[in-house]
């Protein structure tokens, strides 16, 4: 590479993005564009960084595949932290190129960016496979921290709290060794998740908040749990998904909340059929729906008729409990994602929630009207955040821009 590019890359590596920009600010050739992009990303101007990196990737010559792959990787990482989950493309091909040319650190970095994306959209198995294919030990120390953070994220979402704590401890050690404050802050905010109420338990007519390890213990206790955040019923190694059957789920939840007592027919009709008076036709429909719920839950419990309604009778001797989000409301799922402190695009939220963009947009508009969330930016660049919480930075471990020359 040439003289000013070398000087600028040296400044960037020394943590002086302004020094780097000063040297290449007016240059439009590919390596200069890439350096400017990385510097702007370090300075937090992600929109400009992305545009510069995209131009750089286009400007590199046909033989400069590695340089182009690094630009694509940097752009993907920026897309990830700006929650532009739909916009990540070409990362697989870039990773293959980096791998083929022996750039192991950046190939690993690409794996880590992809694993984080899979984690955010809830594809845990794929994220785990991605990590498993990547041996952590010979990697640069910052990558090891990133690796452990993704492993912790997977363990938390799987409710394996012991392994999650162990992974966070590894991430903490590596982040301290790497001496990257943003990375350390990310580890700290991830650790906070373990000590914050994660769910609300409703059992025997009483409610209390649970931490993640208490949720894990509840799941392991053999209790029959009606999980209102995932819309399923589980117990004794059996999971009955009811997410596509809202009437059955509402009935199961009402029965579980009243357990060991029964629930009057009128109350069940009101819960399941949205507050209508229980006339004869509703009673007939209730019998049909209870019959369907019996079939669904037959591995876990019986549903017995009582004089005034129905009662849940689990096969096991364990407890019955309802697990709900700490705060329930119409848009709790949207808020749960936004509570990570990042700026999300509505399309990324729709992807992560598996919902339509329209329904997410409607939820965001209502939440914005009540001041619960706020928009940032306009048009396609618009992002949504919960009002800013200090201590939620995002570590960008950008690739070194220069492969050669």
């Amino acid at each position, binding site marked *: 590479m*040439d*003289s*000013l590019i*070398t*000087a600028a890359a040296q400044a960037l590596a020394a943590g002086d993005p302004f020094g780097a920009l000063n040297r290449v600010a007016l*240059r439009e050739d590919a390596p200069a564009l890439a350096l400017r992009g990385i510097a702007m990303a370090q300075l937090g101007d992600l929109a400009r960084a992305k545009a510069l990196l995209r131009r750089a990737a286009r400007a*590199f*010559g046909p*033989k400069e595949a590695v340089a182009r792959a690094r630009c694509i990787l940097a752009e993907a990482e920026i897309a990830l932290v700006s929650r532009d989950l739909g916009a990540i493309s070409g990362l697989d091909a870039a990773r293959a190129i980096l791998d083929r040319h022996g750039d192991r650190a950046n190939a690993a970095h690409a794996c880590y960016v992809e694993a984080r994306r899979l984690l955010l959209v809830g594809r845990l198995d794929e994220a785990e496979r991605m990590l498993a294919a990547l041996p952590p030990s010979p990697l640069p120390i910052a990558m090891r921290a990133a690796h452990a953070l993704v492993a912790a994220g997977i363990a938390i979402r799987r409710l394996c709290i012991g392994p999650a704590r162990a992974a966070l401890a590894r991430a903490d050690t590596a982040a301290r060794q790497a001496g990257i404050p943003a990375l350390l802050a990310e580890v700290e905010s991830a650790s906070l998740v373990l000590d914050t109420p994660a769910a609300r338990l409703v059992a025997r007519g009483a409610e209390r908040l649970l931490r993640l390890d208490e949720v894990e213990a509840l799941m392991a206790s053999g209790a029959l749990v009606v999980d209102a955040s995932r819309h399923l019923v589980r117990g004794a190694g059996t999971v009955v998904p009811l997410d596509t059957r809202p009437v059955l789920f509402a009935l199961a939840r009402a029965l579980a909340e009243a357990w060991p007592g029964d629930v009057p027919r009128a109350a069940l009709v009101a819960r399941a059929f949205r507050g209508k008076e229980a006339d004869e036709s509703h009673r007939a429909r209730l019998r049909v729906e209870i019959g369907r719920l019996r079939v669904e839950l037959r591995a876990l419990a019986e549903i017995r008729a009582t004089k005034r309604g129905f009662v849940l009778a689990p096969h096991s001797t364990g407890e019955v409990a309802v697990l709900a989000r700490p705060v329930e409301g119409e848009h709790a799922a949207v808020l749960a994602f936004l509570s990570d402190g990042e700026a999300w695009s509505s399309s990324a939220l729709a992807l992560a929630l598996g919902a339509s963009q329209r329904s997410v947009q409607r939820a965001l508009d209502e939440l914005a009207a009540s001041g619960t969330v706020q928009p940032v930016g306009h048009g396609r660049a618009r992002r949504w955040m919960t009002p800013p919480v200090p201590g939620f930075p995002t570590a960008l471990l950008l690739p070194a821009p220069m492969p*050669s020359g």
Partner: protein
Amino acid sequence: MRRSSADIIREYGPFPEVERVAGVTYDGRHVWFASGDRLNALDPDSGETVRAIAVPAHAGTAFDGEHLFQIAEDRIQRIDPQSGRVVATIPAPGGGGDSGLAWAEGSLWVGQYRDRKIHQIDPRTGAILRTIESNRYVTGVTWVDGELWHGMWDGEESELRRIDPRTGAVLETIDMPPGAGVSGLESDGADRFFCGSGTSGKLRAVRRPRRDAAGR
């Protein structure tokens, strides 16, 4: 045009605290190479670095028999190798896009990397005397026995190539192995080239092809 594969005689480095080699020259005893914030003197027989001068050193390096010349940002520094002091500075012809520096016949020859040019300049003023067009990226320049050679590095490909100093026509190329870049090029005046290898931080000695009496 003759074409051959590089015969790499020896590899030096990587060296401690050297992330990349940016320019190379030879003073008759030591190979000097630029590594960002200093110039290092290497004994090519022992492979040891024997000295270093702390001076910004971002691209090409040259030696005129008395002084070292070193490109830093958009300037060429003239350095006294004894004291390590910068005794004069002239503007680099590529304005910072420069890569590769050689001394020959009273002039400095400067490669302009992505512009694929080699400038002959006045070492006192920096004035451009003439410009040779190449058709490849220029990452190192050297003269030996009246032959002008330059290093070429384009992504995964790199070569040492001898060009006609009047027309820029390629007369001969030596292919470097895949993945071996060329950043900085110098001849020892005999049968060796020294070339930097960019970000791998190594230095390589490559055999210069022998010629028969007819010069072929």
